[in-house]
């Protein structure tokens, strides 16, 4: 940049810009050395074997040496039959399960070692978002945001719910009156409230009506464009193709195929899926 501005009229302006840049770079560098991960979500030889009495006569591990990475801005969709190890993967990233071998890293932190710290980056959206039925959507959001250490004003909370797609009449209603899709939206607002860098979604669109599922996909794309790394399990091949950047197919605890979503059509993907599983 020095060449470009040499001899320019506003030297003081240039200097100011230069200093500002340098400051920015140095903070970025500091942040980089401090915690900036190369990848948001990373599994390295991640293996989980349930104790024999829980999975009788099944010596096969539920998850076998899974290695995958999800970069910021990526949506990684995991496909596979029930019992292929998709949910186990999510639970390992959340630290709800202890890995038998290997590592799950979130933001560069080993989840098993830093169960609390690693969750700062994470937001989790289960198949059915369950909230406290006696509280309103807004109160639920406020509670979960504060749990993660974020205090928002009432206005901000309303804005978050609206951004997540919840119509404003419903904000103050008790969650016991909410539909599944509405609870899902509160779940997204919770993720928005903590400014999550990584999202773990466990079959989030199953049971949603097409319109709600479509809205949900739109929101995911926005989050992804804002730089979130998203790992999502699903049974919906077409939706996976539509919103995923990469698609992994799992079978019996192994990641057997990883594909770029934009290189194939939904029908091709389905054919591959059916061959694989």
């Amino acid at each position, binding site marked *: 940049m020095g060449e470009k501005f040499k001899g320019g009229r506003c030297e003081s302006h240039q200097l100011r810009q230069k200093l500002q840049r340098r400051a920015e770079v140095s903070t970025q560098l500091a942040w980089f050395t401090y915690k900036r991960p190369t990848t948001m979500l990373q599994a390295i030889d991640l293996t989980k074997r349930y104790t024999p009495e829980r999975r009788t006569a099944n010596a096969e591990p539920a998850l076998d040496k899974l290695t995958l990475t999800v970069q910021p801005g990526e949506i990684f969709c995991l496909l596979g039959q029930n019992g292929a190890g998709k949910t186990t993967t999510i639970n390992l990233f*959340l630290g709800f399960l202890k890995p038998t071998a290997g590592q799950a890293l979130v933001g560069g932190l080993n989840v098993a070692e830093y169960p*609390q710290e690693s*969750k700062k980056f994470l937001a989790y959206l*289960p198949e059915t*978002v*369950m909230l*406290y039925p006696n*509280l309103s959507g807004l109160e639920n959001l406020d509670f*979960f945001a504060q749990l993660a250490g974020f205090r928002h004003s009432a206005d901000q909370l309303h804005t978050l719910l609206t951004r997540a797609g919840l119509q404003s009449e419903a904000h103050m209603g008790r969650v016991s009156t909410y539909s599944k899709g509405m609870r899902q939206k509160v779940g997204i607002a919770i993720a928005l409230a903590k400014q999550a860098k990584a999202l773990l979604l466990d079959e989030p669109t199953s049971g949603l009506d097409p319109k709600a599922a479509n809205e949900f996909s739109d929101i995911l794309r926005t989050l992804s464009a804002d730089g979130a790394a998203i790992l999502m399990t699903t049974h919906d091949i077409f939706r996976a193709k539509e919103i995923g950047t990469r698609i992994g197919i799992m079978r019996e605890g192994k990641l057997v195929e990883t594909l770029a979503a934009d290189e194939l059509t939904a029908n091709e993907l389905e054919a591959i899926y059916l061959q694989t599983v």
Partner: protein
Amino acid sequence: MIRRLIAQNEFTQTRRDRRFVVAGGVVLLLLLVATWTGFRNYQSLADKRAQANQTARAAWLGQPEKNPHSAAHYGTFAFRPKSDLSFLDFGLDTYTGVSVYLEGHRQNDAKFSAAEDATVLIRFGEMTVAFVLQLLIPLLIIFLCFSTFTREREENTLKLVLSQGVSVADLYWGKVRGMSQLVALVVGPALLLAGGLLFAQTGFSATADTLLRLGLFVLIYALYFFLFIAGSVFVSARSESSRSSLLTLLSIWIVACVVLPKATANLGESLFSVPSNYAFKRLIHEDEEKGIDGHNPSNARAKELEKKVLAQYGVDSVSQLPVNFDGIVMQEGEKYTSMVYQKHFRALQEQFQRQNSLATVVGFVNPYLAVRNLSMGLSGSDYAHFLDFKGKAEQYRFGLVERLNNQMKTFSKTGDWEKKVSREFWAKTPDFAYQLPSVGWALRQHALSGLALLLFGGVLLWGIGRSLSNSTLLPAA
């Protein structure tokens, strides 16, 4: 901060639950009714006994001129005053005697317990504040707490909570705190009523001792509830389902609050049996007649005394004595029978104490028993306070009879049974004024129960902390 947030959430949620409103309301109502009726009961009893004491004194003062020893046979009554806090915990007051007949030659047992006047229904327990606090509030706590964790697990909110980066310890203690606030919401108003009534009763000038007793009373129950809450929330955290959590907690309640106390009482009774009333009186009579060691019969003792007194005054026969020998004989007899009574009563009381101490020992594993003891002790309605009253009444009786005997000895000659003391003499004998022992004394009586409660609490909390430190709260699969 996080704990406060979780506590607040728990508090808000439960308060909006209609089941809590109903259950909490019922318990609060019971507590208020128990406080009010307990207080009315206490007030009328306290008044009646104060009146009875005055009447007894008036009867004593109104005696005509008579021989002092006749007055000793006439006797008087000591009525046990109610302690200020006894309306919170009736303790043994209903079953222990209310008054002691004080007369020469013998120690009488305290008679006329309130239970004697009541119907058989009293056997099923009274609705007292202590009953609600010791048994019903723990039940309410169980219903509040049994599902704090299991419901969140069953409804899957727990995963969402934990995914927000909350530590297990914060979640647990936050919940314990929230539940404590809810229990305080139920117990608080009744406590305020009790305090208000107490102050109104004493004309807003309660003694420091009463205040201290009330303060400790509150503290003991606060600790009791806290342990119940911590334990219940922990069971919920460790249970697979709400059903099993409730079942576990109810079983614990039944064992701790019903089975174990009954079993302890029955075991105590059969281990440390007491003689029947008839056998007890016969033993005393025998000791009086034959001497405490069986080798010193009463007529031999009398001869010896005569020899001693004659030698003391340097005379040859009783009629030459300058004092009334009958007075001396009766006072010596009084001393001897007192000794006999004391020996037998002490043995009996020790046996009762042994029965009670079994409950104290079991209190190390059952906080209900420890709290029951401490609560009675602080309310002044336990066995120790009863014994203290009996002891002081006996002391007064002995002093009174001694005074009468000495009067007899000095103011008349031997054999002169006709000489009477004037009516002013009755007024010179002091009145019986019972003073409740201090709170420090009460605590010393129950130091072991206090230690038991603290030790149990310490071990429980330590165990919970240890168990939580390596738990994810989620099922393994």
